[in-house]
């Protein structure tokens, strides 16, 4: 993967995940006239989650375009624009609505370079606010990253910190191929240190967020934070969990995960998407067929979303996806080989 190295000398400040994304888009709009933002209510409304915010005031409605409520067509316009020279960033208001645009993302954007034998390039970025926890029920709370991770031709990233949100979005923009970025709605307000200026976070590299020797927890998006909280609890009992932030669903950073499992011998995958055929299935399978298999001294475990649509009732909603105590219990049992 062709992502440039991260510049480490930049100044950092504390800003939120959504501000970090906005900052990345602002830098891109400033630097490259080919960059346009498209999406529903990203202009004067500032985006359903206020991610685009004031960008329309800074760059005008020609660069920050409110689309009609036409997800398939809108995504397709972005694909056609990318194919012919623009660098569109297309925001789905909720990732659930990408179900309307799978044809353009999967049948067109992902395959265009290949079908045309390398003669075309579709440098488009699709931004996907995803995940549950907002009380918005079954059609506004899904986590579809596994669908896109199954599609060759796409890259799929899932930042868990403001720094990565900015760095991965800029990497996505520099990438000549279509990139789908999953943003967790509950992370938008989370603050963190973010370097100033233009930098990129390489697509396809996981990050070790916490070192540990007893059990490896691979988590994505908001689950990284829940895993870290669980790890703190476990540390009190002397169990040291290594927490890996997946960051990229396609490609998956095999080496980092294998390296960790070699050390710990135990793997727990934590993800919000539906458990069956979710991201953890791939991680588990990847490790089970790798050289790390010999180092495993307990069955690989998965904690994923329930086999149910996301319910409206808040207690049910919480129960439908892994929470910190669930991770704690699962990691403890695994570390103690009670599985």
């Amino acid at each position: 993967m062709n992502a440039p190295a991260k510049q480490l000398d930049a100044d950092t400040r504390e800003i939120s995940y959504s501000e970090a994304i906005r900052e990345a888009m602002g830098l891109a709009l400033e630097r490259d006239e080919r960059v346009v933002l498209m999406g529903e209510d990203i202009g004067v409304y500032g985006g359903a989650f206020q991610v685009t915010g004031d960008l329309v005031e800074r760059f005008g409605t020609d660069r920050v375009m409110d689309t009609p409520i036409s997800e398939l067509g809108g995504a397709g316009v972005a694909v056609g624009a990318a194919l012919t020279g623009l660098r569109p960033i297309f925001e789905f208001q909720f990732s659930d609505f990408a179900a309307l645009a799978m044809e353009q993302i999967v049948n067109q954007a992902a395959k265009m370079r290949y079908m045309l034998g390398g003669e075309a390039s579709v440098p488009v970025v699709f931004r996907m606010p995803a995940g549950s926890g907002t009380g918005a029920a079954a059609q506004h709370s899904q986590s579809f990253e596994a669908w896109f991770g199954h599609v060759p031709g796409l890259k799929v990233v899932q930042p868990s910190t403001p720094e990565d949100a900015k760095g991965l979005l800029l990497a996505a923009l520099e990438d000549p191929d279509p990139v789908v970025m999953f943003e967790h709605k509950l992370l938008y307000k989370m603050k963190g240190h973010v370097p100033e200026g233009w930098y990129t976070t390489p697509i396809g590299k996981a990050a070790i967020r916490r070192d540990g020797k007893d059990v490896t927890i691979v988590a994505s998006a908001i689950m990284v934070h829940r895993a870290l909280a669980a790890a703190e609890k476990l540390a009190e009992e002397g169990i040291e969990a290594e927490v890996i932030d997946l960051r990229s669903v396609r490609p998956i950073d095999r080496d980092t995960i294998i390296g960790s499992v070699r050390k710990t011998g135990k793997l727990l995958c934590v993800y919000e998407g539906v458990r069956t055929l979710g991201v953890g299935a791939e991680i588990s399978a990847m490790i089970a067929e790798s050289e790390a298999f010999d180092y495993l001294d307990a069955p690989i475990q998965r904690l994923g979303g329930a086999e149910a649509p996301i319910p409206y009732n808040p207690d049910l909603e919480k129960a439908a996806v892994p929470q910190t105590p669930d991770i704690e219990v699962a990691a403890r049992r695994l570390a103690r080989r009670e599985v």
Partner: protein
Amino acid sequence: MTDDNRPFAIRNYDPARLRDALRKMYLIRFFEEGAEDSYMRGLIHGTMHLSIGQEASAVASCMGLTDEDKITSTHRGHGHCIAKGAEVRRMFAEFFGKEEGYCHGRGGSMHIADVTRGNLGANGIVGGGLPIAVGAGLTAKRLNTGAVAICFFGDGANNEGAFHEALNMAAIWKLPVVFICENNKYGMSTSTERSTAVKNIAERAVAYAMPGHTVDGNDFSAVAETVEAAIARARAGEGPSLIENLTYRWRGHSKSDRNRYRTKQEIDEWMARDPIQRFRAELIEHGVLDESEAEKVIAEARQEVEAGIEFAKSGTAPRISDLAKYVYAEENA
């Protein structure tokens, strides 16, 4: 009756039905105010989309329907639900996430439904209900039930591909469907002038060779007359119609709206055209009821809403162990 100059509703409905229509309009208004208030107090979570200001469109459109007839509704669907005969207490219970709710607390505002009364449900997906309503029309036609389906959708939804596909299929198969676009000028923040190539959504009926009508959606009689005619046409096997009710939502799009896309003046102008006041005045003018009877309707509606909130508060929380109940029929029990 042809040279009877009174409004359509007065001419066509008996006083009991007119009174009930007024009651339903108040019920919608008070229900939504009650829901809003409960939301502010933290009793309801998530988000909701209020239709305050659009009550005539919901109630008048459903005047010609029986429980056998179907409607599909939208994210802004409380009004449709009440118009189609739902009990507000079970709606509140749903909003409070309780087992007594219409969806047993699994759906909330965006999926409020009452299938037994023919309301196939609100929908979180803009345009999602359009083909579903056509499917209901297909069932009616194939099984010869005589039922019609009313499909509510917004001006924003008219730019979804589903709109095009649904209207075309209803037209070629001459299905008993009435498409009702509640044009409140905005899809979220985006005005129809910015989103839609035509001025009036009803102009698009031409593309499906079906009748198209633009009506004052805050005029109960105008809506009832136009929709009743479309229903009659549908029941007679003559196919679908597209009706556009021009109306306005007084509140923001949802709970997160900072209202930066409309002027106070515009909102005030529309608030002055309150569909409930207007209908109430009409009923009084034509002697259907008097002030004190109107006040009684209001009091009844208020009381029903208050009782509904109490009912919801004391409802049963779903058991966590029932998380996967209702995913499949096998797990229904």
